[in-house]
């Protein structure tokens, strides 16, 4: 059996109040070490306040061919976007 450390996907929250964002990947023997490695690899320039790690093969992803069915329906729901609605200027900020 090959003894390569598993691959982990790293998500970092850059500032309080923001969402975690995918920043890259790395190898580590387990989740604890993945968090430590992520601190050393991906926050060398004060980039983070919180780290999530997920083993890469545990990530379920939509397949590219689903792209149409998954995302196109929302394109027609233009009313979800605030700019869809015309609000008279005299009403003020909304």
């Amino acid at each position, binding site marked *: 059996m090959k003894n390569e450390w598993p691959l982990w996907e790293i998500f970092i929250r850059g500032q309080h109040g923001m969402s975690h964002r995918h920043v890259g990947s790395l*190898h580590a023997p387990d989740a604890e070490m993945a968090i430590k490695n992520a601190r050393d690899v991906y926050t060398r320039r004060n980039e983070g306040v919180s780290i999530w790690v997920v083993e890469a093969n545990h990530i379920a992803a939509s397949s590219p061919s689903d792209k149409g069915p998954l995302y196109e329906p929302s394109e027609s729901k233009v009313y979800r976007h605030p700019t869809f609605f015309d609000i008279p200027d005299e009403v003020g900020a909304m």
Partner: protein
Amino acid sequence: MAAPLTQDEALFQFLLRMGDNTLILGHRVSEWCGHAPVLEEDIALANTALDLIGQTQMWLGLAGDVQGEEKSADDLAFLRDVWDFRNVLLVEVPNEDFGRTLMRQFLFDAWHSIQLGHLMKSSDERIAAIAAKTSKEVAYHLERSADTVVGLGDGTAQSHDYMQAALDYLWPYVGEMFASDEVDAAMVKAGIAPDPASLRTDYDALIGRVLAEATLAIPDSGFAHKGGRNGKMHTEHLGHLLTHMQWLQRAYPGASW
């Protein structure tokens, strides 16, 4: 018989001990850059070395101020000879292999974190401020080195053997961190720093816990090499380290880099 130390002389010696420890260990750890077992460890070791170099700038910078001879941290690092260095012998022994490097790091980090915890309450505000800043870095060093010692001690039979050999080799260098002398007595009296001997109980508890988890046996010997922190007898290794570290400053005196 030498005259007793003045308070400033004692303080200067104490600061050299702090700064030389981080200087020499930082140098040793930096030797790994580009040669570590895996990229993630290469990057992590460089972070540790960078922290230690930064800490050296603070400790030796303050030492220069206390000495009052207008010497910078660089002057103290690059222009003293072996007998003027005050680091413990533990930090100057060669890296040998990754196991010995991480074991040495762990044995030092454990002392360092306890020491800094006390120094945060130092009566000297400058020292308390450096301790407050550096203790966060050192807490992470300790977490990482302890985890690695456990991981390798409790890993394969081969990694266990490497770690036990590292511990056996390094153990005689542990005791020096807890030796007390007249410099320490002056620091204790002024409320600047704790008596090194008083840290031993906490230290033994900490390393005992980690080494047990690592399935490693602490050698049954109280013998301790000494001579580093008072400069009386360093190992042969320190001179070789300095020939690298100080070469440019020595070969081209007065140049600015």
